[in-house]
């Protein structure tokens, strides 16, 4: 018995090290048009993975292939170490972009049916549903038909349905659409909570500020191809345009390595020659006795990178 426990724990550890999602060179065409073109990426345990891209880039198709709703033409997908199967489906939560609920069923009925389809025990599902509904302040509405709920309320219920069965991998496709700021914040907290519990999350959205706020790594898809892939900080530093932002009382002449400047009214932007580090510029400023109010290495926002990449792709 002790041996068995040991084996189980070792297998568990092996699983921890393994990627939760492993996609290699996956392609899909519709009517002869390549919607997803040889896309590869992997997602580790406990990370929030952002999937970004313009409309029609192939995000939803990629997600549907992950969920085994459509089959890829070529390439390989492994979820939790295996090609997707029924047992694996029980360990995934999916909130699609095209989503809804049974209008004639009550909130509890809808939730218990969807949980049953994930092979969840009835009683456990009921207990956890109450807990989660309480968390999103929807418990008083649990016996209402979804017909009677507002759009935003329906969305919270769908969110609950997605994580009800305690999935190890959760996929959210545009989860913040149609939510007010208060509920957006609530959802963000819940997503971060999932990460702290060691769950892996895929977040597909247009809202770059949300991605910047939540994601560890991202994949940007444009016209079916992966155009950016990696950790957010690494990508941002890659797109740094060699300038610093400066707020100070005066700008001295002849700073080493500075090839130009631009006045943004409240602050100055200094363009560096590429050989000089921002650190050297700062020490030169201080040595010249300049009072520095703000000194910031300029990094473009993800939004700017997004627009730049999409424009380059045209």
């Amino acid at each position, binding site marked *: 018995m002790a041996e068995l426990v040991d084996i189980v724990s070792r297998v568990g550890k092996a699983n921890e090290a393994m990627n939760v999602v492993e996609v290699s060179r996956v392609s899909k065409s519709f009517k002869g048009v390549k919607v997803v073109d040889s896309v590869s990426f992997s997602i580790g345990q406990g990370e929030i993975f952002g999937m970004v891209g313009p409309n029609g880039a192939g995000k939803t198709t990629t997600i549907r292939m992950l969920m085994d709703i459509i089959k890829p033409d070529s390439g390989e997908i492994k979820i939790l170490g295996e090609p997707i199967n029924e047992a694996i489906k029980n360990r995934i939560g999916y*909130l699609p972009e095209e989503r809804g609920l049974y209008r004639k069923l009550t909130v509890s009925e809808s939730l218990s049916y969807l949980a049953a389809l994930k092979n969840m025990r009835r009683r456990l599902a009921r207990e956890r549903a109450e807990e989660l509904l309480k968390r999103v302040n929807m418990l008083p509405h649990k016996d209402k038909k979804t017909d009677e709920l507002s759009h935003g309320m329906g969305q919270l219920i769908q969110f609950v349905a997605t994580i009800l069965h305690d999935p190890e991998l959760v996929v959210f496709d545009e989860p913040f659409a149609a939510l007010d700021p208060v509920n957006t914040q609530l959802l963000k907290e819940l997503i971060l909570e999932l990460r702290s519990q060691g769950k892996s999350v895929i977040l597909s959205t247009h809202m770059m500020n949300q991605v910047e706020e939540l994601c560890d790594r991202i994949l940007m898809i444009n016209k079916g191809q992966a155009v950016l892939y990696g950790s957010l900080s690494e990508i941002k530093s890659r797109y740094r345009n060699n300038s610093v932002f400066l707020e100070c009382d005066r700008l001295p002449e002849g700073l080493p390595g500075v090839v130009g400047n631009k006045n943004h009214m409240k602050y100055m932007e200094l363009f560096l020659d590429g050989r000089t580090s921002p650190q050297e510029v700062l020490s030169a400023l201080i040595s010249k006795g300049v009072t520095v109010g703000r000194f910031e290495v300029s990094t473009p926002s993800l939004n700017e990178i997004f627009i730049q990449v999409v424009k380059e792709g045209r």
Partner: protein
Amino acid sequence: MNKTFIILKHEFWKTLRSTSFILLTLSLPLLAILGVGIYQGVHHWYHPAAPQEEQIGYVDQTGVFGSYTSQPGVLFVLYPDEEQAKDALLAKDIKEYFVIPADYLSNGVVTRYTLSREVVPSTKTTGQITDFLLSNLLAGEVSPQVIERVKAPLLLDSVRLDETGEIAPGQDVASTYIVPIIFATLFIISIMFSSGFLFQSVTEEKENRVIEILLSSVSSGQLMVGKVLGLGAAGLIQVAVWFITFVIFSRVAPGIIPALGALSVPASLIGWGLVYFILGYLLLASLYAGVGSIGATAKEGQGWSTIIALPAISPIWFNYFLINSPEGAVSRVLTFFPLTSPVAAMMRLALHAISAWEIALSLIILAGSIALTMWFAAKVFRAFLLMYGKRPALREIIRYVREA
């Protein structure tokens, strides 16, 4: 628990609790109770007056027609001359009168006088006068028994023998006409409603966008099979309720409403009914599942569903052929064509006019068609569940199915 079974259970209970299902299922028992109630009410309050014996006058110029003046329902009154007969008619003592002229025996002409406006004399009256004349003409020539037989030489009693020479049941009007038609109607209503519910359930999940959430938990095949079986089980409950109603009604009603005669539902009919219901339902349901998945909304699929429904109903229109020549070519074609065969075969079974090989062949054809449509519907189902755009043309459907 198996996911197909979870879907089956969900669809089953959802249907059983829906108002339209409950109303439809209970409508037949309620109608039966109402029918018996109305009959009894009418019977209780309305007593038709006993038919009075009519009087018909006659003037006999031959002197032959003196006896047998009392025929069933009528009394013949002899008048010495036409004047007195006419007065009696105008005074409404008699309904009408006729004159048998002296040369009657040579040409058979009789003149009839009546106050009522009519194109042709009623068959009842002519029958009565004929009987009266016949009886008098034959009186003394043959025995009264022969006179009776001449008046009614044929009281036909038909008995059908089966292949073993035993007397086959069910040649009376009730089981010949009423049972098959009631049977076919209930059968069609139930099959149509069950598959209609299925159609609704598929389009509903597409319309309210639950479908993609479902497909992340189960395969499209599991979803389709679960739905088809779940709603089919609900349909069986409905059929069971109706069958029980019908059996009780056929036991109780003839005692209350004598006109219904002996309505009998043999056990074999119930057994075959079950088989044909299940097969007929599976065929229509798989067609509806496929069609339901193609349209984005219920409305879009409606046209298609009507096209499928028409042939399924058609045996009712052909009931003349099925009842009057159940072994004819039309009946055979209807028995073998998969969409019409459940109803046509059931009607012929109710008539006891179908042979074993025909049942076997129709079942084989049905089972084969079900396998084919199921396979095709599953492909269509998978290909179209996630498409919300405009309804595709037939050519596109075929291409998508090939790609799926």
